[in-house]
């Protein structure tokens, strides 16, 4: 008896993925903008000579100039500085909220899908209740009830976003749990926890990661919206939404105040969406061309 493994002559997997990634210019643009944002957020103190909260009353509401690229606000703080520090906040908060929510949602969804039955039903009904409300309205209501603060805004966002991940993970799990390797693991007498964490979650995580990327844009927008409505980050925190909130009053005469934070919100959420779509094409075998 002898068998030799066939050496498949195929390019490395990353090469194939890169090839498919490259074919989609929008994804590239999204990715590129996000990299810029991340660099900006990471090196914020090096990119600007100002502090985000250093007041300069002699220089209030100055229009964009070489010294203040994006102008200054009503107490003379440099808007460019505040916007890039805002990137730090929005990206940092956005990513941590979505990643944590995504992981918890995946575990809940995978468990609900794997066991099914009454347990699964109850969990899904709870998620349906959350989903029944418009996202923003529910997030606003929750934040208002918990008290306006950045932390509470994030908690509220986590609650309104979790059903997306639970549903996704559950529906993927329903497929995975019928795979023979899951059945095989059951026949060995392995525990359900082992099966869920070693077989189910690793096999449903790809669509979750895609969803996380797509939802990041959404969440950044939500954080900003809550900030704008005065429910999220409170002044003087350099948060984009909160900045627009104040800048709005000056919009007619000092357009730059609200425009630049707004532009960054737009860029960040669009880029995440583009990148998410690209990743879906990349990682999801169903869209393999």
């Amino acid at each position, binding site marked *: 008896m002898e068998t*030799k493994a066939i050496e*498949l002559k195929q*390019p490395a997997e990353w090469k*194939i993925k890169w090839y498919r990634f490259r074919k989609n210019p929008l994804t590239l643009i999204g990715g590129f903008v996000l990299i810029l944002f991340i660099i900006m957020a990471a090196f914020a103190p090096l990119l600007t000579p100002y502090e985000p909260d250093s007041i300069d009353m002699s220089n209030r509401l100055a229009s964009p100039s070489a010294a203040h690229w994006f102008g200054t606000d009503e107490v003379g703080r440099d808007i460019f500085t505040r916007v890039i520090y805002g990137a730090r906040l929005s990206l940092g908060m956005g990513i941590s909220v979505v990643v944590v929510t995504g992981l918890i949602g995946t575990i809940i969804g995978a468990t609900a899908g794997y066991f099914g039955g009454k347990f699964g039903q109850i969990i899904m009904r709870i998620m349906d209740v959350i989903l029944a409300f418009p996202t923003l309205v529910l997030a606003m209501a929750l934040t208002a009830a918990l008290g306006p603060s950045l932390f509470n805004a994030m908690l509220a966002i986590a609650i309104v976003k979790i059903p997306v991940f639970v549903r996704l993970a559950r529906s993927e799990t329903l497929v995975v749990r019928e795979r023979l390797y899951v059945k095989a693991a059951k026949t060995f007498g392995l525990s359900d926890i082992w099966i869920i964490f070693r077989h189910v979650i690793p096999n449903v995580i790809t669509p979750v990661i895609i969803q996380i990327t797509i939802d990041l844009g959404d969440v950044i927008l939500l954080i900003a919206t809550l900030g704008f409505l005065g429910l999220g980050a409170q002044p003087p925190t350099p948060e984009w939404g909160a900045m627009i909130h104040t800048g709005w009053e000056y919009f007619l005469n000092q357009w730059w105040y609200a425009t630049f934070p707004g532009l960054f919100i737009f860029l960040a959420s669009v880029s995440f969406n583009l990148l998410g779509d690209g990743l879906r094409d990349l990682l999801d075998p169903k869209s393999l061309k």
Partner: protein
Amino acid sequence: MFLQIKNLSVTFNSIYGKTDVLEDVSLHVNKGEIIGIVGESGSGKSVTALSILGLLDRNAEITNGEIIYKDKNLLQLSEKEIQLLRGKEIGMIFQEPMTALNPTMKIGKQIANVIQKHQKVNKKEADRLTIAALKDVKINDPEEVAKKYPFQLSGGMRQRVVIALAMSAPPELVIADEPTTALDVTIQAEILKLMQELCEKKGTSIILITHDLGVVANICDRVYVMYGGKIVEEGNTKQVLMKSSHPYTRGLIESLPEGKSQDEALKVLHGESFNPRNRPQGCVFYSRCPIRTEKCLHEQPTIVEVNQDHKISCWEAEVYVDHQELV
């Protein structure tokens, strides 16, 4: 000659680079005969069928060859002209019957549509012919079945309907790609019998593509054995199966458990199924061949006639020629 494929070569373009999936395939079909194309995964048997129908994927490229059907080269026809041939003169039956059926249309209507399109009869006549077509494929209550949707039928029934559909034009050539692989043996036996009857009654030629040598033995007049995108052995069925002269065909037949006693180990073709991405320079069967020589590694074998109506593509053709009969 009714249909003739000459030196057909097909390449797939993909991110893996170019992959040759058919290499210099030549075969022919006479009027009213059933030929078998038999092979395992990666042999190129389905690609051959799809090329005839002009149904290859967009990434496939026909690099060489001709497909002559009634003096026309099918490869030079426009998409429109091919479309006209498909269904009317050339019918097809696939492994999965649902691919050929419209899930939202009643069976009777689907068949009647085809009949009306190709036979230029009025609706009433088409309905009558539909019932007759369903009867032809041994459906006991054709009126009832005609009123049903595809999902209401069992797999065997659906495949019968597909055959009725493929036969309704009526075509002159039917290409059946693993038509019974998804079916149970008892139903397979009925479907094969049916195809054979239709062939005899209406003079239809059939190209049957299968991996099952038993199926070939039962209904094919002639057979082509494919391996790695090439035809390695061809000839009349009896000759090819009983006096197999190519080491692959021989190995394949010897590795079947049929007729072996329980205490004799099966003869084994070593190695794994052919991988087209790993095409050798010489003979495609080299890596698994029990009688290979140095020459086989470097040079592709030529076709040799070992007997009347029996050819193989092998450098060592004489080895098995006078061997005992296999079955």
